[in-house]
């Protein structure tokens, strides 16, 4: 169904946040399962995609803020329980938390699948992410056109809620676009679509703001990994990559158990505690993002150390044997924990520190 009301647009943009976020844990599991120093080119490719997905979350938040919405990235259902369908998809496939593997990359290809020209969604269930954003773009255009006829605009959000370039940084992935009008909204939506699936008839994402060579769109980056071969600049989207070999070692990864859950490790208190601690940090990260997206962009700086810490914690979990016959290791489960527990997992306040000191004495 086309988006015809502001309420529906806001709902869709909230969905966009959920959608962008839902791809991050699976990508991170694949990325973190590659030990430092092996599959170097592969991990650089996956890493670059993750950076851009995080940027997309920021862009979605900027869009939602621009049209007067309130991004919510910390509600109880914000994180899917893996295995999960992509939120608001047509449930064509499920996404799992897996270590780096052909199976994982095949799912990534499905996630980033390019939209067929002129394909239309059915109801509010979308077949591809591109389709979803095409609907959002149409909605934005339509609603703004209507508003202008009445001498108004849908871009009524506070400018100070926008995340600006200097506030967002996580190791590359481009700079966010501040959304204040139709033009910047179009740019933001295009950025998401192009990085994800490529421009209409090319494998590149049209993004060369750092004066670098064009980057491949996500789909094609994953396809390079799957085929173990680089694309040539002259390759067309329906081609196989024809460039140099891309070395891929499918066995160089920690054998993380698929879709780990905290509850599965109740009888292994050591692992259990580390998994809970991971989830506490993860919840704290989403809370920092929530604060940043809701009027305090500077809170993004607090999110940065948490992102780094999560990596080291995930990698530690992935080296701990589960003791199961399959030789698997533990892993991060990306489950939200109740707010108070997350606060306990974050840095102690001065008061709590004092209390802790008293206890020790």
């Amino acid at each position, binding site marked *: 169904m086309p988006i015809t009301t502001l309420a529906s647009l806001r709902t869709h943009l909230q969905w966009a946040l959920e959608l962008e976020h839902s791809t991050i844990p699976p990508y991170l599991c694949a990325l973190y399962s590659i*030990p*430092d*120093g092996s599959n170097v080119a592969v991990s650089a490719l996956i890493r670059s995609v993750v950076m851009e997905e995080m940027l997309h979350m920021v862009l979605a938040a900027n869009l939602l803020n621009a049209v007067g919405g309130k991004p919510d990235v910390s509600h109880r259902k914000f994180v899917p329980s893996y295995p999960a369908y992509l939120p608001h998809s047509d449930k064509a496939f499920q996404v799992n938390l897996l270590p780096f593997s052909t199976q994982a990359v095949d799912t990534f290809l499905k996630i980033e699948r390019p939209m067929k020209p002129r394909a239309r969604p059915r109801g509010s269930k979308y077949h591809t992410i591109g389709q979803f954003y095409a609907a959002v773009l149409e909605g934005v255009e339509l609603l703004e056109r209507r508003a202008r006829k009445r001498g108004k605009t849908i871009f009524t959000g506070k400018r100070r809620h926008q995340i600006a370039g200097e506030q967002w*940084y996580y190791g590359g992935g481009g700079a966010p676009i501040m959304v204040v009008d139709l033009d910047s909204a179009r740019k933001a939506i295009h950025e998401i679509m192009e990085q994800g699936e490529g421009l209409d008839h090319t494998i590149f994402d049209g993004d060369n703001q750092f004066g670098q060579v064009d980057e491949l769109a996500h789909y094609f980056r994953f396809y390079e990994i799957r085929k173990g071969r680089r694309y040539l600049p002259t390759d067309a989207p329906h081609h196989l990559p024809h460039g140099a070999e891309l070395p891929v070692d499918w066995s160089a990864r920690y054998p993380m158990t698929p879709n780990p859950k905290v509850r599965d490790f109740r009888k*292994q208190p*050591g*692992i259990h*505690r*580390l998994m809970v601690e991971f989830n506490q940090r993860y919840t704290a990260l989403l809370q920092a993002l929530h604060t940043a997206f809701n009027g305090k962009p500077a809170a993004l*700086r*607090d999110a*940065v*150390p948490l*992102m*780094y*810490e999560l990596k*080291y914690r995930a990698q*530690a*979990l992935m*080296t*701990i*044997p589960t003791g199961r016959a399959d030789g698997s290791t533990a892993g991060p489960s990306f489950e939200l924990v109740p707010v108070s527990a997350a606060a306990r997992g974050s*840095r*102690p306040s*001065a008061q709590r*520190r004092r209390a*802790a000191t008293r206890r*020790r004495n």
Partner: protein
Amino acid sequence: MTLTGFDAAELWGTGQVQTYYALLPSIIGDAIFGRLMSRWQDTWIRGEGDEPFLETLVKEQILEDPTLGPVARNLTYLWYTGGWNQLPADWRNEHGASANDQTYIVSSTAYTEGLVWKAIHAHPTAAKQPGYGSWALPPDTGTGR
């Protein structure tokens, strides 16, 4: 755990368990390694569940043992730093000096997984960096479990 102050999951989480398990006998020989392991097992069985008693046993049975003590201290040092220190001259004279008994850092990952960094709530220098601006935030101060 009793030597390092970190639990089994944390030790496995460094990815170094197998490396160190193979390294130790290659330096001190299978015989002394076997003695250390069996002494360790006995101590553990006797002291399990009573932490202060176990700590006393470890001290008396292992750390104060002229053969096992230096090895146990070195093993703890290895876990904390990723580096092996050449055993004391007395020990080497008594038990023979293995060519593998050199002062060195076992590997780049052994260095970065050194427990000392976790103990001091920091990260190994030149690895596992905490991210832009993290140093401006109040530090974590827990004292371990």
